[in-house]
């Protein structure tokens, strides 16, 4: 491992102070900003005499104090207040379907009119599944299939020809049935979890307009609680589903 020079240590200390000062800023924005400053320092150092401690200190002085930079960055951010509709949307998307399907449409409206979610999250919320968890049950009905038996079966007669045919999921081996069922149930719950996760950040991630890269965020106690609730629901669903398949 390369040994740190005094100049490296000064730079590291500065960057640490900057990260500390940026605690109140949107984490992904702060991370991006630190990366930009880091790159700036690297570019500037290319023109300096290596080991020139005074030059490094002057360079950092010119960049600005961490506190001043954090203040400047905070001013450029537009804090997004998360409204009641935004809070309700993930739940409506997942469970709203049970309110005669109507709730899901309200959730859908909230999802597409909100600026909190990116296009990919909006598509995710819409496609998996239409109707939310109610959609899961419709999918079961559509794909679970049935076993039809044709034949002659009259009282007192020997059954001559009885042929049975399976359709839909029942054709698949039991393990695949379980897997497909699991995906059907877990997918809308994952969607709700994902929408809540984005909501918990409270900001649109401007560095990531398409919403492809997931940014690790600092979670609040409230998010942790809702995560637990989601996992408990998921576990119960899996349990019910297992009983349903095994029966």
């Amino acid at each position, binding site marked *: 491992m390369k040994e740190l020079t005094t100049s490296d240590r000064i730079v590291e200390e500065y960057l640490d102070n900057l990260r500390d000062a940026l605690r109140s800023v949107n984490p992904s924005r702060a991370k991006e900003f630190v990366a930009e400053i880091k*790159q700036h320092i690297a*570019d500037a150092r290319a023109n300096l005499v290596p080991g020139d401690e005074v030059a490094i200190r002057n360079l950092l002085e010119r960049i*600005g*104090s961490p506190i001043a930079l954090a203040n400047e960055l905070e001013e450029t951010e537009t804090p997004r207040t998360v409204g009641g509709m935004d809070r309700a949307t993930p739940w409506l998307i997942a469970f709203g379907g049970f309110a005669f399907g109507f709730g899901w449409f309200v959730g859908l409206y909230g999802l597409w009119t909100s600026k909190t979610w990116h296009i990919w999250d909006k598509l995710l919320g819409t496609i998996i599944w239409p109707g939310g968890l109610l959609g899961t049950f419709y999918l079961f009905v559509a794909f679970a299939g049935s076993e039809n038996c044709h034949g002659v079966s009259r009282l007192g007669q020997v059954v001559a020809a009885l042929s049975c045919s399976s359709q839909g999921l029942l054709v698949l081996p039991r393990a695949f049935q379980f897997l497909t069922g699991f995906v059907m149930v877990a997918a809308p719950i994952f969607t709700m979890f994902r929408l809540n996760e984005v909501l918990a950040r409270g900001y649109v991630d401007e560095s990531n307009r398409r919403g492809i890269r997931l940014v690790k965020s600092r979670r609040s106690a409230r998010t942790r609680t809702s995560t637990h609730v989601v996992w408990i629901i998921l576990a119960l669903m899996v349990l019910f589903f297992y009983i349903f398949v095994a029966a």
Partner: protein
Amino acid sequence: MSYMVVGGTDKLLAQMRRGAIEYCVLALLMSKDRYGFEITRELSAANELVTSEGTVYPLLTRLRNDGLVDTYWQESTEGPPRRYYRITPSGKRALKSFIDQWARFRDSVDTILSKER
């Protein structure tokens, strides 16, 4: 909205700097696409324009959010890839309108100041 008081020159300059610097960045990008360090170096070379170089980055973000510039990454011969900033058509329009207004504003202020000197 804060009211200007006599003696608040520093604050006034800071506000003017903040307002004008965005257009200076756009002007720099008219000739060619540039990366962050290049932009800050050009701005620092002009006297009184940038007090702390680091503050240029939040400003670049704001310009990008407003759609006046866009960015792309390009390989660098001296290290990791760099983010380049490029002016957009709406950035060009914003700059053009600022240049017109700025010229009128500067001339009016100069006229009054030179008369009263």
